[in-house]
């Protein structure tokens, strides 16, 4: 079972990855794709473990700009 703290952390991390362009999802589960975490870790120069370890978590909590880091691939006009 996840503790309350872990739940909060996962919730925040998912919100963070969604807000800054690493995932695009509306589902309310706490599942986080490891490739999205890896993409964030790659962008900020951390080890690409795909796990929200302490360094990754700390990075997510740092003060930052509100613009997205990644723009998702846009659909091409037909």
């Amino acid at each position: 079972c996840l503790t309350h703290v872990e739940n909060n952390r996962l919730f925040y991390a998912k919100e963070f990855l969604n807000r800054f362009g690493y995932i695009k999802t509306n589902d309310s589960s706490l599942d986080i794709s490891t490739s999205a975490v890896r993409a964030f870790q790659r962008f900020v120069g951390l080890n690409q473990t795909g796990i929200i370890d302490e360094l990754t978590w700390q990075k997510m909590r740092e003060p930052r700009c509100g613009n997205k880091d990644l723009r998702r691939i846009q659909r091409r006009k037909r």
Partner: protein
Amino acid sequence: YILQGSRWPSNEPLTFRIVKYPTTFPQQFVDAELTKALKLWSSASSLEFEHRKLKKQNEQKSNNLDHKTDIRISFEIGDHGDTEPFDGPGNVLGHAFFPQYGGDAHFDNDEYWTMKSTDGVNLFQVAAHEFGHSLGLEHSNKPDAIMAPFFKGYTPNFTLQEDDIRAIQALYGGKPSKSFSSPLSNSIEAYQAVSKQMAPSVKSSNKNSAICHDPQFDAIITIDDDTYIFKDKFVYRRSKLSMDNDYPKLIHDMFGRWEGGIWQTIPDQIDTAVTWPNQQIFFFKGKHYWKTNRFQLQAGYPRLISDGFRGLDEQHFFTGHLDAAFIYSGDNHTYFIKDAMVWRLNINIEFTNSIDIDYPQFVSSWLHIGEKITSALQWINGRTYFFSYKSYYRYDHINHQVDDSYPTYPRPISEWWLQCKHGASSSETAG
């Protein structure tokens, strides 16, 4: 760095206006810090800024001037009407819109804004970053760059980094100097013109004359600020200003590594090559490719192109022998051209990349150039050049068309890149 894809027309100074000041920071200091932040960008580019000051506080709402203001700056609290609410102290400090969306910059009024203190959030640093977005830059993954997304804490002597300078100059060109204010500033043509002015007697050596007799080549790349041109088994080098008389040299002697007492090298007569921003260079020939770190061949190569750049082999018509590989200045993705088709890599990472689902496309409809592309290059000025046998095109990646400068493109490679004259040997006629 990553360019968003829109920019301001650069023929007039950009105007900015602070339409809502923070509640806990003196206005004159806000003016000074924000002006200083914009000056960082204007000092490295052709941009100029003009401050439209509020005459009275009540101008805020009845502002005719606002219609004429390019970048509007405001300090906002929480939900402020743009679907990206601020979150109080910490976390998100500000955000800004790209030129095509108006260029406005918003700062979180709830932050503890400071000037020269390790406490709070340094306004100048955050403003410099947000204005980068206002000018057309996305977040950079270079941690030192101003355009990296995270606030680094108060940094004395905070200034643009190389990555930021390259980015802004890719969009707006470099700062015209007094002695050098051509509208072509920072282009190969401008350097050529300066080269002629500064060193009228500069001559390419006899060795360089070989390429002037047949001014087409296999591949062209940059390493640091120098341009390397590959033809058959030779490498030619030109600096910003002129061809290097110490060249050509043998490819065999320049790009290789010792392995088990044997000097392993990249092959002669390569098809094409591309330099990535991390100084890794990929050389392509047939269905194989080699990787070097600058001049040092990396172990484990050659490899199959289809292994390192997944997706290229899935096209039934792909048989290797690429014509061109380059990083396009419009989006800084890696592209490959082979005959009439162009492919785009999803991300610039070997092995984990893939070909974008929208590709391949026809070169003629993607570039609006009908000629066969034989090489391509993003040069040190951040512009992309396309080569077609003995001619070349400079590309306007903002409007996605061939640059409409005069003399018109295509222009002869021999004259502008190789400093040959009228197709003759440069040793006979240069200068």
